[in-house]
């Protein structure tokens, strides 16, 4: 009646790697890692927004069933602290996180990078198409996330800054 599905992280490789359990947490940094703390996002000292390197998540079927999955959406459990903003986009292909695909810093506070959409508490689609859940592996497109930090953020530096919970929903039939 149901495929076994998890939210997986894809990174640390030039080509698409196997997904790893993202359910150990995600840190938004400037390195190609899930939880690394050695390359933090600098807090702008003047008006502007700096962004993290991309984090690529996707639904991964770990035990298949005769169902299909569609209507994948992403949203937040609450609103981030002032000065922090999460953004997303769907992507059909893997792209290794590096400085080149990090969104360019903006001279405005609260900026949204080109091609991305701000995450909110309302579900928003990142991939609608139906994909069979009969086989194990990634199901559907990547949900590419970046975190923006602007000059209004007053929480100070740290590697355990609280963010709202990330929610992913999908339809299985």
């Amino acid at each position: 009646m149901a495929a076994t599905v998890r939210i997986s992280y894809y990174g640390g490789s030039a080509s698409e790697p196997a997904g790893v359990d993202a359910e150990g947490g995600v840190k938004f940094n400037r390195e190609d890692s899930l939880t690394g703390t050695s390359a933090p996002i600098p807090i702008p000292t003047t008006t502007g927004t700096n962004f993290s390197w991309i984090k690529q998540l996707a639904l991964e079927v770990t035990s298949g069933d005769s169902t299909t999955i569609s209507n994948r959406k992403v949203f937040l459990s609450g609103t981030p602290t002032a000065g922090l903003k999460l953004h997303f986009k769907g992507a059909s292909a893997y792209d290794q996180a590096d400085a080149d695909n990090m969104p360019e810093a903006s001279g405005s506070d609260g900026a949204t990078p080109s091609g991305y959409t701000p995450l909110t508490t309302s579900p928003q689609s990142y991939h609608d198409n139906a994909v069979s859940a009969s086989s194990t592996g990634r199901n559907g497109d990547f949900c590419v996330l970046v975190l923006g930090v602007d000059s209004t953020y007053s929480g100070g530096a740290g590697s355990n800054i609280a963010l709202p919970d990330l929610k992913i929903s999908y339809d299985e039939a």
Partner: protein
Amino acid sequence: MPQERYTWAAHYDDGSVHPEIDAAGRSRGFTTVDAGRCIALELTPTDGTAPRVLVDVRPGERPVFFRRRTYRLELGSGQSRHEQTLTVAGTEGETGSRYVFITEDGTVVLTSTREPV
């Protein structure tokens, strides 16, 4: 993930029934339903206590069934959990759509959209 709250069965115009769980106990996807022959969609509670749900499928309509699942990932602490599964049945056709959304606590919402608030 908790046990499914309902299983579906498609009733065909020749009196036969196409259930989600076949005689051998294997589950089927809803894409195996022959929509053109389906005259009703029945949801049977797996715990035997909730009411059964019957959705009539009129000429020109096609049956719809899905489970909307939500997972919640705590970005900081790393805790992750299944948050909810909504069971959804309904019909779609040129004259409109209608859906029954059933929450895990048994609340029923009737709606004309797949994306109710």
